[in-house]
């Protein structure tokens, strides 16, 4: 899922002119699961906005299935019409879709979108995928070195790995290459690590405008 967290209220307030009519819109998909921008968080943010010193004419809240999908955006049209400012609690993709769809309205982000990752336990999410466009998980024991190694090395681990931890945060951060080493050990495939991995083709990554997927086979004339 896409993991995000909420911006500090102070930062959100700075985006909102006094006496404006606000509409907070949540998203029921990824950001609901990571407890950042779902129905519940919409309610909390609305209550906060009603309590702060800065006064707003109106504060409404709602949530839709997926803000990154046009199909669901129209259902909030009546509420949007009434509002001056839309506060999107979706990920960056959702905020942008909302902004495109209601291009006459000011749409502001309530979240900082962080990464594609997983939930590791109560209140703990971790990045798992960079979306680099060139997956090599088959040779790294299902652990992504570009994401899990602080330097994104393909021929790691570097000299900063100690007791299985990364020197960048030795208390809390596991060395990605140590994880890969242990996994490949377990799989009896350590010899893979001896092979020199060539430089990555970063042209497949985010390196030249937004990447696009065009599927001729599913295009509709």
């Amino acid at each position, binding site marked *: 899922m896409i993991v995000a967290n909420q911006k500090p209220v102070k930062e959100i307030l700075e985006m909102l002119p006094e006496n404006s009519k606000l509409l907070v819109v949540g998203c029921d998909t990824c950001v609901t699961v990571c407890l950042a921008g779902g129905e519940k968080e919409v309610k909390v943010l609305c209550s906060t906005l009603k309590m702060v010193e800065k006064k707003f004419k109106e504060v409404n809240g709602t949530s839709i299935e997926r803000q990154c999908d046009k199909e669901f955006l129209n259902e909030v049209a009546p509420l949007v019409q009434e509002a001056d400012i839309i506060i999107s609690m979706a990920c960056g993709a959702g905020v942008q879709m909302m902004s495109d769809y209601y291009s006459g309205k000011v749409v502001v982000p309530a979240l900082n979108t962080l990464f594609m990752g997983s939930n590791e336990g109560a209140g703990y999410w971790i990045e798992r995928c960079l979306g680099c466009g060139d997956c090599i998980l088959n040779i790294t024991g299902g652990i992504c070195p570009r994401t899990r190694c602080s330097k994104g090395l393909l021929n790691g*681990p570097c000299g900063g790995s100690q007791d299985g931890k990364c020197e960048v945060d030795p208390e809390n951060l596991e060395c990605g290459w140590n994880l890969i080493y242990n996994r490949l050990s377990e799989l009896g495939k350590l010899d893979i690590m001896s092979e020199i*991995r060539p*430089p*990555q083709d970063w042209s497949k990554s985010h390196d030249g405008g937004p990447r696009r997927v065009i599927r001729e086979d599913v295009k509709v004339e």
Partner: protein
Amino acid sequence: MSEKTKSKLEKLFAKGEFVVTAELGPPKSIDMGVLDKKIEALKGVIDAANVTDNQTAIVRISSIGTGLYAKNAGIDPIIQMTCRDRNRLAIQADLLGAYLNGIQNVVCLTGDHQTFGNHPGAKSVYDIDSVQLIRIVKDMRDKGIFQCGDEIKNSKKAEILPPKFFIGGASNPFVEPFNWRVVRLEKKVNAGVDFIQTQCIYDMDRFSEFMKEVVDRGLHEKVKILAGVTPIKSVGMAKYMKNNVAGVIVPDKIINRVEKAEDAKAEGIKICVEQIQQFKETKGVAGVHIMAIEWEQVVKDIVEAAGLYPRPKGEK
């Protein structure tokens, strides 16, 4: 083995000399007084000096700029090149520029993470890693090609003029997973590294184990290994290294020795000299890399006491 480069270092290794290198950290400003002192302390005492590349991710004069300055002052520079600040275009361009100006040696490193330095908000590059960088420099030298495969020449009919660098790398025998360290060294050897400088060594037992494995795999015949040492100045420093520097193991017996000594500095130097004596007897060790950080004036004492002074002349 025919010589691959015009590097003095390569010649010394080829002659079987026990090579001595040191570290020369560039200053933060163009006030060169401090560097001049370091150069004065190292000149004639060592065979070549590593000029660090934004070490610990703190901005300093570039390794190539400082390397040229040192060269003019009579020190053979080994420029360090990290993957943190430059992509493959910038690295190859800088290497050509360095070679144009007579720099013969390069050490290929991944680079300290930017969060350790004075620009923690910087975007790191890591387009390539140290193993890939070694391969790139080797291909530039031996195949006359850039990473993309293009030949290093100005036009179709022009001559290929490859930068002929003597290629170095680093190895840390003291980090997890230990079993992996020699394999990673072998990977660098396979990528084309000519010499290796190790992380500073205090745990001689572990280093011996590492070297035994190196010799068992025959790697010492393919790569020249310089054992890294850092003389200890004080108990505080020894404890700091033990507890705060990732990838350094300081055994308690070393700390105890410095603690009990009347003169901690002298004891630190003595330990260092004893280590070098041991390295001279260790199969597969081809020299020593002395990292006397901000304490360059003791390098001469160490080299002398270790019986490595005067240094051989490298005929050009």
